[in-house]
């Protein structure tokens, strides 16, 4: 992006598209874009253009903080605007991708966004140096002003921006040292807090361009099914109904649209019927009059039969992802050994905002308003369906009412654009019902893990084998092979055991699976940290002391574990608490998306076997913390998300269809079940790593390890549900 390109500075908002030129190029002489990420208004306000979507994780505050830090402006001068499409906004993997996910935003943006702020500042300094004819090095900046102390002159950025915009953007501008940070590391208030408490924040579902039609869909309940017969006559007679259409399911939106070559035809099933009306209520009531029969798809699949199939393979030899020494020989020669099989269920995301997308196809151009995780992918989906060039697609991204990985799969966008193609000229807003949302998710896969460990006669671990069996969304969508989908965080845990083997076996899941907050960490954290606890118990060691024995080469893990132990005043044994019940603690330590999280959970169990989590302590090493307030919120949220799943979440599949319907049969964590949470960050000057996901993996293990200490019973399959305690005596002992 060259200098002097004017932009319309607007807070992220929903507006009608301008097809004469993309919004960032509309001519308004007042606003000057100094580089791809920074534009200045004459009144001194700064527009930060961000490629990253805001789904609760706080990046629409943290990203501007990076710019404001180096530009020396205050946060109340900042507006946030969605960056247009373009290669300069692909900050991941060496300029390949702009998606929001994998806890990558801060990690990838930390240097480039600061460079953008620093480069803009340098241009303003140079403008002042020219204007005042003073040496560049004598100028200072603060709070949106350039000052020359020697001549007692000062100018607001807005007064200099017109000159600055004519300069060539500099390269290699030095960045501040960490010790000079003024904003980074401080608990700056979220920029989106006010609109999100006043009901004015715009989410995808709120988009309302003029002449809007609203659609809802009924998808083949069996995954991958197609429509065999459709009777739409009764529905067409209902009030407000405009049309009833068959559209593709869009299940492989990444594989077949986002990353496939433009000329490759998607392999689609047409199993989705859409009713388009003048309002959601009319579309929904008319849908009840549609008679539709489906055929095909994964009719033979059930989650219980799949579990049995996985278990038949638990003793098989896997494909090695990572190994050290000779684990089989070490197991054969061990003085003692243990083994265990673990399993996790399918899980739904249940974003509070059901899937929705608004699309307008008019005069050969398309505008898509939707919550997504990659604007490039949305543009490619629309371009392919409509057979238009990418530059004819305008993507507008309101706030996401939750993401958690669900909106990386854009089946709802395929459907909405396909509807818009059939009804050109009018914007169509597709809204899914909650039932469609839970029954057509991209689930956290059901995975089985098989472990073996061997010890010498002194109780030192000599062998450790971990085998994961299952499938993953990365494989289904053509993003990766079997191994990364299953393994990922399984191979980078720190325990130093002389003979290790980390293996996988592929077992195809024929229903859609995807990316669920922390992805492979969501199962690996539970598997590994539960089994490591079993290993400690096998040699009668304290769970924290045992882990520390194996962390000799991992000082950052040691620091996080020691910190959480200190925060919680670790108790390795149950104790009688003030509420008259026995309480116990459990610990877990996991590295996910390059961030280390150590957690301790304190639990009790009531007479009905219902666990209560009283408190969770979490120590985190994510390198430099940009905003400790938002960072803490992410840890709290990550723990709540993982705890909800561990306690009660389970998607059930029978005859190829999900049998859960809504929150009544897929309960999630309530306010009453929320534990107290205490979070601390390890002091660090390391480059920042992600925070959206890493708090989720440890909590299921911390919970189940605490329940083991309390009850003596090991939970190897989630969700925990109500404990079926083996003996009433045990149960009585828990409550006095």
């Amino acid at each position, binding site marked *: 992006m060259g200098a002097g390109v004017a932009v319309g500075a607007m807070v992220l908002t929903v507006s009608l598209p301008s097809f004469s030129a993309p919004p960032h190029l509309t001519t308004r002489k007042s606003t000057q874009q100094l580089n791809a990420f920074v534009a200045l208004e004459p009144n001194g306000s700064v527009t930060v253009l961000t490629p990253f979507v805001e789904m609760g994780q706080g990046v629409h505050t943290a990203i501007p903080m990076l710019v404001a830090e180096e530009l020396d402006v205050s946060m109340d001068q900042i507006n946030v605007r969605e960056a247009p499409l373009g290669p300069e906004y692909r900050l991941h993997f060496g300029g390949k991708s702009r998606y929001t996910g994998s806890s990558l935003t801060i990690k990838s943006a930390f240097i480039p966004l600061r460079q953008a702020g620093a480069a803009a500042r340098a241009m303003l300094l140079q403008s002042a140096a020219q204007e005042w004819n003073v040496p560049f090095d004598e100028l200072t900046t603060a709070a949106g002003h350039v000052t020359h102390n020697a001549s007692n002159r000062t100018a607001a950025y807005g007064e200099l921006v017109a000159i600055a915009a004519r300069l060539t953007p500099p390269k290699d501008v030095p960045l501040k040292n960490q010790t000079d940070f003024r904003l980074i590391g401080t608990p700056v208030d979220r920029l*989106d807090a006010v609109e999100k408490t*006043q*009901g004015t924040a715009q989410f995808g579902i*709120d988009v309302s361009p003029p002449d809007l039609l609203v659609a809802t869909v009924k998808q083949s309940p069996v995954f991958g099914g197609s429509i065999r017969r459709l009777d739409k006559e009764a529905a067409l007679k209902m009030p407000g109904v405009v049309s009833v259409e068959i559209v593709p399911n869009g299940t492989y939106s990444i594989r077949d649209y986002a990353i496939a070559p433009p000329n490759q035809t998607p392999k689609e099933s047409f199993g989705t019927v859409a009713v388009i009306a003048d309002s*959601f*209520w009319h579309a929904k009531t008319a849908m009840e009059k549609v008679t539709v029969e489906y055929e095909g798809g994964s009719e033979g699949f059930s989650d219980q039969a799949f579990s049995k199939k996985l278990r038949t393979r638990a003793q098989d030899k896997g494909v090695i992802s990572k190994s050290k020494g000779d684990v089989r020989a070490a197991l054969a020669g061990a003085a003692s050994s243990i083994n265990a099989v673990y399993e996790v269920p399918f899980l739904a995301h249940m974003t509070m905002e059901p899937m929705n997308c608004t699309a307008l196809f008019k005069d050969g151009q398309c505008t898509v308003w939707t919550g997504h995780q990659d604007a490039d992918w949305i543009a490619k989906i629309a371009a392919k369906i409509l057979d238009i060039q990418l530059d004819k697609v305008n993507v507008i991204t309101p*706030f996401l009412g939750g993401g958690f990985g669900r909106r990386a799969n854009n089946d709802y966008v395929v459907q909405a654009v396909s509807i818009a193609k059939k009804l050109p000229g009018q914007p169509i807003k597709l809204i899914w019902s909650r039932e469609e949302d839970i029954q057509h998710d991209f689930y956290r896969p059901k995975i089985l893990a098989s472990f073996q460990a061997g010890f010498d006669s002194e109780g030192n671990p000599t062998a450790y084998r971990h085998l994961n069996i299952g499938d993953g969304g990365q494989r289904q969508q053509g993003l990766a092979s079997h191994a990364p989908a299953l393994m990922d965080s399984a191979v980078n845990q720190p325990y130093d055991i002389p003979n290790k083997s980390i293996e996988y076996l592929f077992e195809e899941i024929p229903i859609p699976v995807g990316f669920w907050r922390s992805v492979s960490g969501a199962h690996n954290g539970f598997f590994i940290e539960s089994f490591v606890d079993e290993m400690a118990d096998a040699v009668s060691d304290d769970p924290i002391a045992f882990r520390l024995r194996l962390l000799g080469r991992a000082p950052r893990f040691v620091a996080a574990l020691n910190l959480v132990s200190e925060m919680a005043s670790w108790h390795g044994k149950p104790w009688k608490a003030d509420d008259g019940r026995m309480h116990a603690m459990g610990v877990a330590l996991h590295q996910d998306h390059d961030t280390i999280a150590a957690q301790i959970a304190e639990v009790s169990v009531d007479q009905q076997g219902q666990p209560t989590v009283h408190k969770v302590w979490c120590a985190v090493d994510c390198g430099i913390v940009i905003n400790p307030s938002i960072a803490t*919120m992410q840890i709290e949220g990550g723990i709540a998300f993982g705890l909800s799943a561990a306690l009660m979440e389970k998607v059930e599949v029978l005859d190829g269809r999900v049998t859960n319907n809504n929150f009544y049969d897929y309960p999630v964590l309530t306010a009453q079940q929320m534990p107290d949470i205490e979070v601390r960050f390890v002091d660090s000057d390391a480059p920042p790593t992600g925070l959206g996901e890493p708090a989720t993996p440890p909590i299921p293990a911390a919970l189940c390890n605490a329940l083991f200490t309390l009850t003596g019973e090991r939970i190897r399959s989630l969700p925990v549900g109500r404990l079926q305690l083996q003996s009433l005596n045990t149960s009585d002992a828990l409550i006095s």
Partner: protein
Amino acid sequence: MVKLNINGATQEIDDPEMPLLWAIREQAGLTGTKFGCGSGICGACTIHVDGDAVRSCITPASFAEGKDITTIEALSKNEDGHLLQQAWIDENVPQCGYCQSGQIMSAAAFLKNNPSPTDEEIRAGMNVLCRCGTYLRIHAAIARAAQPSDEPLTDDSKL
């Protein structure tokens, strides 16, 4: 035809069976009230009808005829509502923000009935789902907005 009074303005609704949620969002154009489950479970759609918290997604328009409907957009017109929203901001409650209209409307009705709740009462009294896990901060915001009790303070968040 049903005449509704939404935030002091009259809105005519042609279908008395239409849930208040859709009358508010699509007919009155007030999108702060959210659709979450359509079954009255999650509470994202919570509004006030004559001051009481109501789940608008399962409440037909006819129920509110002749009554006063208040949505999140008008809450700040009332001093207590404004203070509650300020407490929400002070405690940095929202993450994705989608459920927060329902949380705040639910909290406002809760505090109207119990202006000086105990911690246990706050914990028991809030039944709107949040997937981002903002429950602790919601609790703190309600405690902050609550009137001081006559009894000695025990809750740190009120000090």
